[in-house]
């Protein structure tokens, strides 16, 4: 399953996009914009809530696939 997400680069001068894997993001990995090299990573305070949401999402997928 493809878990790669894409967001618009938050750098106002850049029109690029940043691709990231949320499962790696919660492990502390950072992802960069291919155009301007800006980097995003998850704040410590966001890790728990994002991890929790991803776990609930995985549970839902497991339920609907069974």
């Amino acid at each position, binding site marked *: *399953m*493809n*878990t*790669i*997400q*894409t*967001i*618009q680069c*938050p*750098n*106002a*001068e850049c029109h690029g996009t940043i691709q990231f894997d*949320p499962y790696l*993001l919660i492990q502390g990995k950072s992802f960069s914009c291919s155009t*301007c*090299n*800006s*980097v*995003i*990573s*998850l*704040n410590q*305070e*966001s890790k728990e*809530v*994002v991890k929790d*949401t*991803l776990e*609930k*999402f995985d549970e*839902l*997928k497991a*339920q*609907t*696939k069974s």
Partner: protein
Amino acid sequence: MINLKAAGGSSGPESGFKGKGIDIASLIGGPLIAASEANAMMLNKQADFILSTCFKEDPITGNHAPIIVPISFKRSILIRDEETDQPKLDTGEYTIEIPIITLIPLNTLGVSSVDVDFEMEIVNQYESNSTNSSQHSSSRPKSVGKTPKLYGKISYDSKEAESLKQANRNMNRQKLKVNIHAQEIPLPDGMKTLLQLYTKSIIPNDKSNSSNS
């Protein structure tokens, strides 16, 4: 994959062995309706998930606002140094606020195909008179004549039957195999548009951590 097998041998008026037999249309329609209901159930579950984990409901208005999480954002841009008049790299670290829904690899899980597999012996064919011809419409062709309806009984699988012993050969076995395949299907356009709006509206709005090098 869900694999349903229905086998039976009752002899009620609709069971196929006596009377006019089973209506083939409902035999095919039944599993399709069940699959459609299963599909709707899966989609509802996902909609509930999105609303309960990615949005916060306002208890007064009932409106749902996206749950926002802070994310660290570092950028380096070339600026002109005012003192030396030379280009220099300006590194800034910001906090951006991002709707959590844009971090979840959402995709729709739905029924992609339903295979209804059975062998049937046609035992009856009825024709019912259509009464749609009473009103003549110039734009719609008149529906004339009779609608054929087929009735039959499910026969046992001929391939399986070959391997069965002679003693079992006359056994009245009915088999209806329904294979339902569920797979990830693309997100609906409305959902894609919503996600696009969210991802395009991300801007570094907290520059308090900004530092020049």
